[in-house]
Structure formats: C-alpha cells, structure tokens
C-alpha cells in the first residue's frame, strides 16, 4: 500500500483491509507515536466537514506530523477561480500526503492522478469515503471479535447513503447477512442488490423496524434527511418510523452494537446513549486509530 493513494473502497483487497485493521489496533494500544516527525500533511477541505477534519488532524497530531490546509473553499484560492489541478499540483510541493474532501464526485481520483504525493479521499460528494468504511470495519471487528458471518441491519437512507454502500461492499468479503430497513423511496439501489445476488449474500428488506432486530449483531443507523423528500407530508409520516429507542433493544443479543456515522439528529433517541449497546461515540474514537493506520501504511512507516 506504500505510496498508493486511498480513493475508493474498491481499491483495497480483503488482505489490505485486514492489515489496516491490525495496525489500527496497534495504534489504539499506543496512540502517541511520533513517526510523522518532520512530515507535512495537507488537509484540503473544499467543503466543510468538521468531524472528519478533526479526526484526521487528531490522528496526524498524535503521529507528530505538521498540518497545513484549509477548512472550506471560501478560504482558499479556489474562490479566485483556480482549477483543482493547479491547487493540487501546488500543494503537492508543500506536503508528503494530501487529505482531501471535495463536493465533486471523482475529484479525489483526479487529484491522485495529478499529485506527486499520495492522496487520501476524505469524501468526494456522494461517491466514496473510504476512511469512514475502514473505521466502521474496525468498530465491527473490535466489538464482535470477527468480521465473519455477521447479521447486519442497515437503517434509514439506504439510497443516497454512501457510508452504507461502501460498508456493504467491504463486508461482502466476510459472508454477512444484511437486513435493510428504509422508506420505500430510499431503498437500497438495485445495483447493490445485484452485487449481493452475484456474491450469493443473503439480504432482506423491511419498511420498518421488525422483531427480527433481535437477531442483529450490528445495527448501522443513518440519518433520513428532510431535504431528500419532495413532499413534506411524506417526511412527517416516515420520520418517526426510523427512530431507534431504548425499549426496542430489550430482547436483542448481548453482542449487538449500534453504529452511526454521525452527526445524529433524531434517528437515535437519546435514551439509547446510556445503553451499553450504543457504540457510536466509541466508533468516532476508532476513526482516529483507523486514520493513523491508513496514513502510516501509505507513507510506509513502521511501528
């Protein structure tokens, strides 16, 4: 993986995932390791994403690296009309690695072609957000002790949610069973169902929470965004259907953990937070270790 940009979850093999997860566990055991001493990492956020940026900057800081960059396009030369290519080619002269968030789909792949230093995609529009997927995998592995043969429930916006799509593809290496819970018009797209059919992976679709949730090992919650609805009445009708409440977890398995890529709005009731099965804040913490592992792997740094 040395010097190889991380743009899409499809770029990495099962073995690559496992190597990163293994390394993430080492960073969790010993998070402060100054292996980036003297290195500069550019964090270029062409659109704001506070959580992802802070997680990356925390990871880089714990590794002893220096951070340069901007937090939204308004504070960069993009505002003056500079092309993406020019921005990337310039910044590549100042840094050893570029972490980039951009609203345009495919922009990270393009940046990796013009950059002389590796690029990590921190989200390119609705396309890919591979570091989120790796931290999700790490969270699943850590809480379940394995990635194999798990029953995974995905809830909410399964049509536009890129985290759901990438996690589905990554987990497909580990013989999962999927249960999809979503409103009719936010159902998982056909291309992903075809993919699961081809791989022989079992999946079930539901329009609301079901008693089958008692069989879940992982419940992956996502936000149903109001702006996806053309009809506000439709939103009002469905918005309360996809809320997870503490009393729904009564008969669930002991190993069940609730994940959410955050930010959460109302889809997980706050009464779930104190339940030991709630895992979304630890999941965010795992993001720092996963990103440390990704940066170290790409820069070929041993620990």
């Amino acid at each position, binding site marked *: 993986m040395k010097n190889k940009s991380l743009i899409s979850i499809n770029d990495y093999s099962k073995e690559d995932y496992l190597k990163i997860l293994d390394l993430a566990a080492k960073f969790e055991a010993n998070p402060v390791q100054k292996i980036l001493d003297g290195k500069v990492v550019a964090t270029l956020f062409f659109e704001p994403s506070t959580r992802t940026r802070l997680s990356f900057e925390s990871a880089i800081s714990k590794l002893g690296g220096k951070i340069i960059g901007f937090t939204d396009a308004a504070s960069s030369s993009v505002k003056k009309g500079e092309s993406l290519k020019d921005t990337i080619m310039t910044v590549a002269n100042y840094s050893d690695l570029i972490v980039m968030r951009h609203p345009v789909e*495919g922009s990270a792949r*393009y940046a990796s072609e013009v950059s002389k230093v590796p690029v990590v995609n921190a989200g390119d529009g*609705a396309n890919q957000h591979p570091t989120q997927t790796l931290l999700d995998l790490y969270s699943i592995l850590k809480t379940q002790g394995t990635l194999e043969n798990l029953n995974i429930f995905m809830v909410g916006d399964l049509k536009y949610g890129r985290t759901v799509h990438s996690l589905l593809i990554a987990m497909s290496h580990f013989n999962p069973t999927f249960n999809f819970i979503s409103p009719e018009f936010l159902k998982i797209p056909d291309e992903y169902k075809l993919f699961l059919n081809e791989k022989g992976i079992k999946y079930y679709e539901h329009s609301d929470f079901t008693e089958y949730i008692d069989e879940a090992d992982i419940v992956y919650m996502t936000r149903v965004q109001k702006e996806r609805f053309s009809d506000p009445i439709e939103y009002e009708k469905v918005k309360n259907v996809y809320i997870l409440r503490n009393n729904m977890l009564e008969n669930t398995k002991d190993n069940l953990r609730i994940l959410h890529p955050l930010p959460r709005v109302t889809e997980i009731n706050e009464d779930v937070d104190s339940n030991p099965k709630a895992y979304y804040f630890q999941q965010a913490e795992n993001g720092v270790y996963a990103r440390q592992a990704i940066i170290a792997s790409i820069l070929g740094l041993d620990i």
Partner: protein
Amino acid sequence: MTKETKELRVSAIKNGTAIDHIPADSLFNVINILGLDKIDNTITFGTNLDSQTQGKKAIIKISERYFEDAEINKISLVAPNAKLNIIKDYEVVDKKVIEIPDTFDKIVKCVNPKCVTNVEAVSTKFTVVDKNELKLKCYYCEKITSKGNIEVV
C-alpha cells in the same frame, strides 16, 4: 445484385477502408469519433441508403486510410453492427466486424452531472462492465453510463 448497386451509390475507391452498415443517424458521430473531419484524405459518404437489415444506413469510404482495431472499435458506441471492407486496388482484400472494447477514453460524456469530468477540464475514462447491455463505469465518479444515456463528446 442489389448489394452491388448500393455500393456503387458511393463511388468506389482504389485503396482504403469502406465502413458499411452505419445507422444513418450515427453517420456524423462516426465521423466525429474517428476524427475524419480533421484529415486530408479523400472521403466520400452516402447516407439514408436503404438497407435490408436496418432501415436507413450510411456508408463512408476513406481513401488511403487503414485503422487499427483499437481505433475503429470506438465506433461500436454508435454503430455496433458496422462492417469494414479493406480495399486494395479496387478489391476487397479483408473484412472486419466491430467489437466492443474493454475501455473507452475521451469519447463518451459521463452521465453524472456532479462528476469531475463535467466540472473540471478532465478527459473521461470508462471501463466496459457489461458488453451486452453496454454499461460503462466512470473511472472517476464510479457511476454507470448505460446504452440509453451514451453521449459522444
């Protein structure tokens, strides 16, 4: 007999390539894809000719020009049933059919308006993921452009 008559509607060439069985409405796309508007060779073409198999068809004859497979296969996007006659000294010395290649570079527009190829000055690149249904996966945004949406740039 009819075939010969049709061939002669576009006058014969001594040496070069004749591309037959182009759907009439794809003629200018084929010219565009092969860059025939930018070369000096003598080119003759006929369009809206009756075809026994596909309604109205077009024929292009290009003198003193032969095509590599990789180049000619690009027209599979708009003329999948086209046939090539390689002509030397007024004789057809070889025939070729068009095959769908594994990749398309530069010639197809990505269907996704949010794709970087539609925002920045980036040439498109596609991998063919389904040759029967003609589905192209964008190298950049990873979205599928399929048969009904294919637009030549």
